[in-house]
């Protein structure tokens, strides 16, 4: 099953840089054939919201919904089931400082 991991942080936090090193996690998940792709994301202040109304493209600077939580990155993972996805997410370094949403794909492709 494929899942989208949304890696979120809840405002600024303090951490030793070594604790935030995501490379060991990436290495493990690639070696296990779990992580398909992913990336860090620029902050919400760099976001543009796009809507279409009566054929007009309407743009807004910044995210549509302002929340304290920021999506800092995402990963697409392919796991046997939710238990494995939970294990993968819990090993991500940001899980200790922020939170990770694990969202299943709508359907298998």
């Amino acid at each position, binding site marked *: *099953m494929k*899942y989208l991991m949304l890696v979120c942080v809840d405002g600024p936090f303090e951490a030793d840089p070594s604790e935030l090193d995501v490379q060991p996690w990436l290495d493990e998940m690639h070696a296990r054939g779990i992580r398909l792709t992913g990336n860090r994301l620029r902050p919400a202040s760099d976001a543009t919201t796009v809507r279409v109304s009566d054929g007009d493209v309407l743009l807004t600077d910044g995210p549509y919904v302002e929340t304290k939580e920021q999506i800092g990155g995402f990963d697409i993972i392919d*796991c*046997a*089931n*939710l*238990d494995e*996805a*939970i294990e993968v997410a819990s090993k991500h370094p940001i899980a200790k400082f922020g939170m990770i949403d*694990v969202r*299943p794909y709508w359907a298998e492709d």
Partner: protein
Amino acid sequence: MTDATGETVNAAITTAYAQEWGRIVATLIRLTGDWDLAEECAQDAFATALERWPRDGVPERPGAWLTTTARNRALDRIRRSATEASKLKEAARMAELGDDRVTLDDFPDDRLRLMFTCCHPALTLDAQVALTLRTLAGLTTAEIAGAFLVSEHTMGQRLFRAKHKIRHAGIPFRVPPAHLLPERTSAVLAVLYLLFNEGYAASGGTDLVRQRLTAEAIRLGRLLSTLMPDEPEASGLLALMLLHDARRAGRLDAHGDLVPLEDQDRASWDRPQIEEGIAILERALRRQSPGIYQVQAAIAACHAEAPDAAQTDWSEIALLYSELARLAPGPIVELNRAVAVAMADGPLAGLDLVDALTQSGQLAGYHLLPATRADLLRRLGRHDEAAHAYREALDLAPAEPQRRYLQRRLTDATAATDGR
């Protein structure tokens, strides 16, 4: 097939429902992966039994008959919908599903998988409890709604969402692997104990509904301890529930007020059930792997075994509370330990522990903290301070029966002060 009167047929169906519902649903979930289909087909099988058994007699093995009937029904429904390409995967399962040579005895007990899946921590606790009652115990949505004082619609939505999450989020239908087992077993035990306490608490729902919940919790506890014979905490929980439930008849007075343990009529306690609970506990304790349920059951056993309140082994109970505080530290456990210590070593020893707890501020706003303090002060003859603490407890007490009890004590303490 045996000839049967209407009454024996009805009894056979009721028994089969209690014994076989969870097994049939669990088996069909494993075979089809579809929770709604599993429940509907189990329902259909019982409806068919209601129709056929009075005419044809009760089958020799009602469980096998019902499972086969439900399985055939599922097979029919999958065949009919299997024309779509997307359903071909399900059609592949039909071989196993349709194999009549596979009898009930060949199936592993799928109810254990079902328990773990219902109690998966990715579901809310409310949903875990509701799913357990629906799929394992076979309560209807309306019955579960009645037990938790929500509308049938709300409960239906809760069950619907939970089943869909299991399916779409990929919650596996399995007994978890060894590295997850301890944590997930705790979750299952917590759900069963919550179920029991919902039924045991004197608030909410009718008596009938509450008794149904405690009975189902005990029944599922028996099942779990049979299916996990190497898990002493499963037996510990079963023993705990049996021991508490054995005192049910003495717990409430004619007005429905709680009777404190020391004032309960011990002749009203269910002795055979107490003996069963103690025997189960002793077998569990021999495994030398104590846990919170075994220790709580041991405390309940101390109370149950005492011929009267005065002969209760409070030193043993105080020790057990120390053990419980080590396994599951928390202010409520500490308060209970203080009460036991006061009974074993005198009120002053208990008061020291209560005062430490008060200073920690952990139970601020909890009426039993000043109420306990008041009782200890009263026993020490410090009536002024006792009256003050009773007033504090009265201000915090949530329900009328507790308030009546505290008011009586306050009146006594005030009288003692005035009479000095």
